[in-house]
């Protein structure tokens, strides 16, 4: 069941060709999954059956892992790590999935909204789940897919971002966090891991006091804190998760900005960031995303109303309306709506709202309008 869920997510966003990135063996990535020594069942154990009658011979295990050269976590996996999902154990229980989440960027920052229904093959496992998880003070992520995967990988991402912040004295940008998450999920491509997240954040302009030389002063301030309203270009954000690239940063920075002598990294962009990351390897940047089984319904509302110049109230009401319509039409979405708003000061959360009330309010509105018109119109 979770297999079909993953394919639904994949069909909603066009799969991008993965660029072959060369990983640096930075400390940031080395132990990202060493905490989890994933136990993979030996395929041989599963093929042996006490009942041999009617047995079909099992396919051979794929020998050798495709070389993930510098990604050290495969060393913690057993050698017969099955990349093809046909090797995995058939599960006797269904996994939870099915949702409506959306996020978009506007002049007031980034708004993220989601429903709260956590379903499990027809049963509502939890009517009040939390699908928008704050990662740090200026970054929230919406989750879709298997809830356990999303919760755990978000935790790992928070840890890695915090380590990055401690090592480099500044927060990693949204694009960098998205790249980090995408790289962490890459070894599990082809397995049943299912994570489809949008990372919504505000890239900061602050640096740690200790890492700036005094004579730089206000000049670097002006060039750094450019509040742009343009779409952030992915290549401008050289804040990839590997510290090994730090040294090359000062060389590859475009000429308009490098006046620094030291090899300190430099914030070249400050403003909202919105990225979509999927466990099949997709990493997209954009201004508007909706993910989940209810996303077609949400897209229809959002495409109608979202523009850059919205006020915060208008944006909130559009997001709320989009989630409400999706919950009305999609069986796997429902219950409440959560809205998070990310600005330069961090994220704020709107009180969770019960959509049942909204449904009754709308019925009341329709009834009053029918009475006012004085005709018996159909629903």
């Amino acid at each position, binding site marked *: 069941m979770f297999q079909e869920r993953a394919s639904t997510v994949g069909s909603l966003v066009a799969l991008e060709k993965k660029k072959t990135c060369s990983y640096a063996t930075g400390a940031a990535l080395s132990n990202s999954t060493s905490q989890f020594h994933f136990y993979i069942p030996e395929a041989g154990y599963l093929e042996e059956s006490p009942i041999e009658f009617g047995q079909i011979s099992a396919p051979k295990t794929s020998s050798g892992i495709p070389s993930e050269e510098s990604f050290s976590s495969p060393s913690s996996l057993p050698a017969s790590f099955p990349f093809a999902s046909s090797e995995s154990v058939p*599960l*006797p229980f269904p996994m939870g999935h099915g949702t409506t989440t959306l996020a978009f960027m506007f002049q007031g920052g980034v708004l993220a909204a989601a429903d709260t229904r956590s379903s499990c093959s027809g049963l509502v496992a939890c009517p009040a789940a939390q699908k928008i998880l704050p990662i740090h003070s200026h970054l929230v992520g919406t989750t879709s897919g298997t*809830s356990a995967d999303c*919760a755990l990988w978000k935790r790992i991402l928070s840890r890695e971002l915090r380590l990055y912040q401690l090592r480099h004295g500044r927060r990693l940008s949204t694009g960098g966090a998205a790249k980090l998450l995408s790289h962490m999920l890459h070894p599990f491509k082809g397995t049943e891991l299912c994570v489809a997240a949008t990372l919504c954040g505000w890239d900061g302009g602050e640096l740690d006091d200790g890492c700036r030389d005094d004579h730089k002063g206000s000049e670097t301030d002006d060039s750094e804190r450019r509040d742009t309203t343009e779409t952030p270009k992915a290549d401008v954000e050289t804040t990839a998760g590997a510290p090994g690239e730090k040294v090359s940063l000062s060389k590859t920075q475009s000429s308009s900005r490098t006046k620094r002598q030291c090899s300190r990294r430099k914030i070249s962009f400050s403003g909202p960031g919105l990225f979509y990351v999927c466990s099949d390897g997709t990493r997209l940047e954009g201004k508007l995303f909706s993910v989940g089984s209810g996303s077609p319904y949400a897209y229809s509302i959002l495409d109608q109303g979202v523009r850059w110049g919205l006020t915060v109230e208008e944006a909130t009401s559009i997001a709320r309306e989009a989630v409400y319509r999706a919950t009305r039409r999609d069986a796997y979405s429902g219950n409440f709506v959560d809205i998070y708003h990310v600005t330069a000061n961090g994220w704020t959360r709107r009180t969770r709202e019960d959509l049942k009330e909204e449904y009754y309010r709308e019925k009341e509105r329709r009834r009053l309008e029918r009475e006012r018109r004085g005709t018996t119109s159909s629903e």
Partner: protein
Amino acid sequence: MLSAQSFGGPGKMKEYHYTGAVENRFSPYAFNGGTVLAVAGEDFAIVASDTRLSEGYSIHSRDSPKCYKLTDTTVIGCSGFHGDCLTLTKIIDARLKMYKHSNNKTMTSGAIAAMLSTILYGRRFFPYYVYNIIGGLDEEGKGAVYSFDPVGSYQRDTYKAGGSASAMLQPLLDNQIGFKNMEGVQHVPLTQEKAVQLVKDVFISAAERDVYTGDALRICIVTKEGINEQTIPLRKD
């Protein structure tokens, strides 16, 4: 001993009559039935489970409770595949001891919940087929219930039912404890006596309608004085 593959899913039996060739593959999982329930109150928590251990059409034991005491303030209820329940509780006990020895204090309920989540996720590709519910007191002495799915997703609740009769019990708890889907009722906080009585009634109802639930009910009441256990008989058919 029947292999779980002859069943259509957890708790469902396939008919014996079939048309065509069937591949019988060994499944490492079995479904042993059982229901677990936990309720959190103001200063108490209740974890209750039935004591029937079944497999397919047979009952293996009438006295196999599914609540396990972890610390003086935490009880865990595990239902699903009994083999994985036993191993998981052994692993949790070992990790509790390790924590106690290295940190010189017992783990709090919230910490146990977070640890269990990582233990379960460590087996993401060959999961423990166990539905866990942890009930206990948090650091402030308030009741806490943490419910898990088999791969480690968890959250804190006020009440939760898990196991074979969970789909029947959860709506009833929503209504009686959460006062959901009712209009014009007063929301009174749950007292310990009322909670215990509610749990007994709820399990009696579950035993009527779910074949895998019955025999006896084990209730563990966690308060700051300690853990109090009661056993109440249920229908045995």
